[in-house]
């Protein structure tokens, strides 16, 4: 799955708030209603609902329309998309550094006695 830049921004922005992160953490353990989500916070239901709307717009959570208490559901793929971005970035540097390591080893390999003579004049360039 590739995530559009816009979607990624929305996911990171949604996760920038500690309350919303706590909500996502809670939902990672299973679906929950607004009432259940509000419980651990010193926050009104409308306050929690506001956070849920932001999370819903970012695509990180969804809410069932049919059920009476409309339980919230974590969209793991969307969260994975955000996490993938971080992982991809880490891999990029890891792979670059592997190549740089090889390049440095090449540059510093001593000239073999049977190889061409070292061109000493180049050291003064």
């Amino acid at each position, binding site marked *: 799955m590739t995530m559009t830049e816009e979607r*990624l*921004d*929305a996911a*990171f*922005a949604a*996760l*920038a*708030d*500690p309350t919303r*992160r706590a909500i*996502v*953490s809670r939902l*990672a*353990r299973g679906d929950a209603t607004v009432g259940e989500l509000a419980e651990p916070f010193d926050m009104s239901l409308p306050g929690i609902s506001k956070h849920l709307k932001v999370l819903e717009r970012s695509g990180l959570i969804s809410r069932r329309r049919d059920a009476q208490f409309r339980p919230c559901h974590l969209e*793991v793929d969307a*969260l*994975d998309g*955000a*996490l993938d971005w*971080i992982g991809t*970035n*880490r*891999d*990029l*540097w*890891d*792979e*670059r*550094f*592997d*190549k*740089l*390591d*090889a*390049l*440095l*080893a090449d*540059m*510093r390999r001593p000239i073999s006695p049977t190889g061409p003579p070292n061109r000493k004049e180049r050291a003064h360039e």
Partner: protein
Amino acid sequence: MSEHDAVDAPDELRFSRVFDAPRELVFRCMIDPDHLTHFWGPAGVSAPRDRITVDARPGGVFETVMVNDADGSQYPTRAVYDEVREPELLAWTESSSGMQVTTEFVALGPDRTEVRIHQRFVPEALLAPEAQAGFLTALDRFEGYLGGLS
């Protein structure tokens, strides 16, 4: 996650690697297109020499095009240097993403250099006052949660 990586501040990503080479040489590799072309692209991706532009001074551009070896797709990236202190520090900002990348070169010995990459991901949305809290630290923890889910 390897031992080199850490998410040690709210909105930052850090990577580091130790190289068996003098600091001056490692620094040169990061600003010389003749060297960059050999390692700037990750595995399976090239960074053609003739498409790398480096003007290593504050306000100067750092442009590269990475080309996927398998399908030829291209990823041009443009950045502008914020700070250049040879041989200890390079800092640039990527124009499209607003990502700030700082590279520190720390001499651990005459032939040993630690390169520390420090990235700040600052899309527009995260500049809002409410967005000051740490999100990457939390995301790191989420990986644990999600690992248990799948």
